[in-house]
């Protein structure tokens, strides 16, 4: 019974209270980055220390936890964080989006619409959307305070000038409740519309940068754009090769060293659920087994 | 008819601070008046202070004493005590000046330099350029020079650009500081004719001309500056 030596969910109660206060402040001011005293966690920065601390602070004994990494439940990062909380909190875990009360995520929002009562916890590497052009933290804070967001459009302008269209495909900046510009973490912009008016509570934790921010349920989230270059999500010209789903985010999977490839759901739970319901894509027959256990993830 | 500009008790003393603060009185108690439609000429030996008087009347030199009431925008204003913005407004509206040397502006062509005073007063650029071209043609400046900056022009060419720039406007008062100094006889005659036209148009002119022929041709009265010499006043 090694877990007994840890406090519930690893962090001590004072730390959890501190983090909850930051979360509450973040909820009260949607999109605003609340500084918090990020702790050393038993994993390196970049492995989700911010998200883990947020999850630890809100986790209760009755919660059911799902952890995904780029949509998949079975990648190293997701598996190790799930195991971590199983050990230090003894809570139930799941891979099923609908069954989870808390979903910690790296770089994706599940395809299944989230429901009231669910919490989505994002792992955030760089929370400051203005950092690209303004290196001074004192200045970016002032810019947020005074709503000076012209710089965000400078970044999008550069995109169009260089590529003919807004080439930013992930960490695509959004404006929250018409006030704060927020970095949605490196999720594909495909997921941006899911943040808008979500039924679920969305929490963002950046461990190294020591920031927490939040989107309470039913929050207005608008992706920045130009009138003549409106925001658009990625489109895929084919359905998922395994479950045939359309209008979902697909990962490219290399099949061999002769240029063979397939496009499959990035959300592994969504894909498996659909297949269990009898949906089939063009490659489902022969590749089903191999592809669910040996996924090659597109690394962003 | 009342004068358009009066000089009364005007004095100029230079204080040379770099030479122990010695005082150099140049003009004392100068007095005369300028009338519309006439040309007055400042006379007297070189160094008598003709140029200083002209510069004080343009606000370029500060007057050490006295007053220079000038009719400006329907009111009488003392140029000697006017603030800088008023002086600039008087220069824009009332008093024009043709200096001996052209202060060149880098990269600006002769035609534009001549047209500039009109553009500054709000005239359409094309119309201003047309008038500038007429004047330069009249002063026999070769057309191939019009688009070039005058920095490399000869003295006479620069002076003609300068004259054209000074004559293009319709200032009620025009000050002329040896405008014909570097000109040949033909161009001097053109300038004499232009001065006569200004007089007919009702302008009051005040000039310094070292060329006796030109002076005799244009002067209605000659103001002897030696009578304003400070030592004479002291005597």
């Amino acid at each position: 019974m090694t877990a007994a030596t840890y406090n519930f969910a690893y962090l001590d109660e004072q730390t959890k209270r501190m983090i909850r206060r930051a979360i509450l402040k973040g909820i009260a001011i949607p999109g605003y980055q609340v500084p918090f005293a990020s702790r050393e966690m038993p994993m390196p920065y970049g492995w989700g220390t911010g998200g883990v601390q947020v999850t630890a602070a809100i986790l209760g004994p009755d919660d059911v936890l799902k952890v995904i990494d780029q949509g998949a439940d079975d990648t190293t990062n997701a598996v190790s964080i799930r195991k971590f909380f199983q050990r230090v909190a003894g809570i139930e875990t799941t891979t099923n989006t609908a069954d989870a009360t808390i979903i910690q995520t790296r770089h994706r929002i599940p395809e299944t619409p989230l429901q009231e009562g669910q919490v989505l916890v994002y792992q955030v590497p760089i929370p400051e959307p203005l950092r690209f052009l303004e290196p001074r933290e004192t200045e970016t804070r002032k810019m947020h305070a005074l709503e000076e967001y012209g710089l965000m459009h400078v970044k999008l302008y550069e995109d169009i000038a260089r590529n003919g269209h807004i080439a930013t495909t992930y960490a695509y900046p959004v404006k929250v409740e018409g006030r704060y510009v927020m970095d949605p973490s490196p999720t594909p912009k495909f997921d941006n519309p899911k943040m808008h008016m979500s039924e679920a509570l969305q929490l963002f934790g950046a461990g190294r940068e020591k920031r927490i921010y939040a989107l309470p349920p039913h929050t207005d989230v608008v992706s920045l754009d130009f009138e003549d270059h409106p925001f658009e999500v990625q489109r895929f010209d084919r359905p998922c090769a395994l479950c045939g789903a359309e209008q979902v985010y697909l990962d490219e999977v290399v099949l061999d060293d002769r240029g063979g490839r397939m496009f499959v759901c990035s959300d592994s739970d969504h894909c498996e659920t659909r297949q269990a319901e009898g949906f089939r894509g063009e490659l489902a027959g022969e590749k089903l087994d191999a592809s669910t256990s040996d996924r090659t993830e597109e690394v962003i | 008819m009342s004068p358009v500009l009066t000089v009364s008790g005007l004095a100029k003393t230079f204080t040379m601070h770099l030479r122990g603060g010695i005082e150099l009185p140049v003009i004392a108690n100068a007095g005369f008046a300028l009338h519309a439609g006439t040309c007055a000429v400042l006379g007297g030996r070189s160094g008598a202070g003709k140029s200083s008087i002209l510069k004080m009347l343009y606000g370029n030199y500060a007057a050490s004493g006295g007053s220079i009431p000038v009719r400006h925008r329907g009111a009488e204003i003392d140029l000697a005590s006017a603030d800088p913005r008023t002086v600039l407004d008087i220069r824009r509206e009332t008093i024009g000046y043709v200096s001996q040397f052209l202060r060149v502006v880098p990269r600006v062509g002769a035609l534009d330099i001549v047209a500039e005073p009109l553009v500054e007063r709000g005239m359409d650029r094309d119309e201003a350029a047309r008038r500038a071209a007429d004047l330069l043609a009249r002063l026999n400046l070769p057309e191939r020079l019009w688009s070039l900056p005058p920095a490399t022009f000869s003295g006479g060419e620069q002076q003609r650009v300068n004259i054209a720039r000074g004559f293009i406007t319709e200032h009620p008062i025009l000050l002329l500081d040896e405008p014909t100094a570097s000109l040949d006889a033909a161009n001097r005659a053109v300038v004499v004719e232009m001065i006569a036209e200004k007089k007919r148009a009702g302008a009051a002119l005040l000039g310094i001309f070292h060329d006796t022929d030109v002076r005799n041709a244009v002067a209605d009265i000659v103001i002897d500056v030696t009578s304003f010499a400070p030592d004479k006043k002291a005597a």
Partner: protein
Amino acid sequence: MDRDLPLLSVRSVTKSYGARIGCADVSFDVWPGEVVAIVGESGSGKTTLLNCISTRLEPTAGTVSYRMRDGEMRDLYRLGEAERRFLLRTDWGFVHQNPADGLRMTVSAGANVGERLMAVGQRHYGNIRATATDWLGRVEIGADRIDDQPRSFSGGMRQRLQIARNLVTAPRLVFMDEPTGGLDVSVQARLLDLLRGLVHDLGLAVIIVTHDLAVARLLSHRMIVMKDGRVVEHGLTDRLLDDPQAPYTQLLVSSILQV
């Protein structure tokens, strides 16, 4: 806007660093469309004064008021920070001696010019780009350089880009700190000529700090001469240069090299 009312009023502005004086008891007004040069040697306090009147450095004493676009005269140091910063990026410009201080060196020339437009809410890429192209043309930068970063520009081009970036929102007042400093003479002449034209065409009020009397003569209507933090003489530029009264101004004018 009434052009007979001052745009900026500086009253008894003093900046002291303990016992040391940056500038002392400086008062003057600037009217719309007027170019005022502040001249003096290094350490004369001209840059301190420029910073004090452009809200970059709070004076120890005195007031600086500005006529806002609604015609109201406001004490600049009583404006909220948001108002002040808005003023700085819309109604004002600031041209730094070193263009790198006033430009974003890692974004394109077009974005450098367009930034202020985006900051005031323009959201049409095509329009922003068209305006940027137009402004690059006005400062004699080819349209084919619009997507290049200023890092690849010469010093003169960078300075012209900085000017375009400042003027794109049609400011009424522009501060310039030795805008031609550090440039080759021929490049200086081109820049001065360009500035002269822009100032005239746009009816800009400009406060320009320079140690170069030729720059002051070419650009300014009025001049303020400073020494040891104090104004020693002020007045019409050509009168100050041709008939200087104060001992220090006479020294300054007589020190100019003639060519």
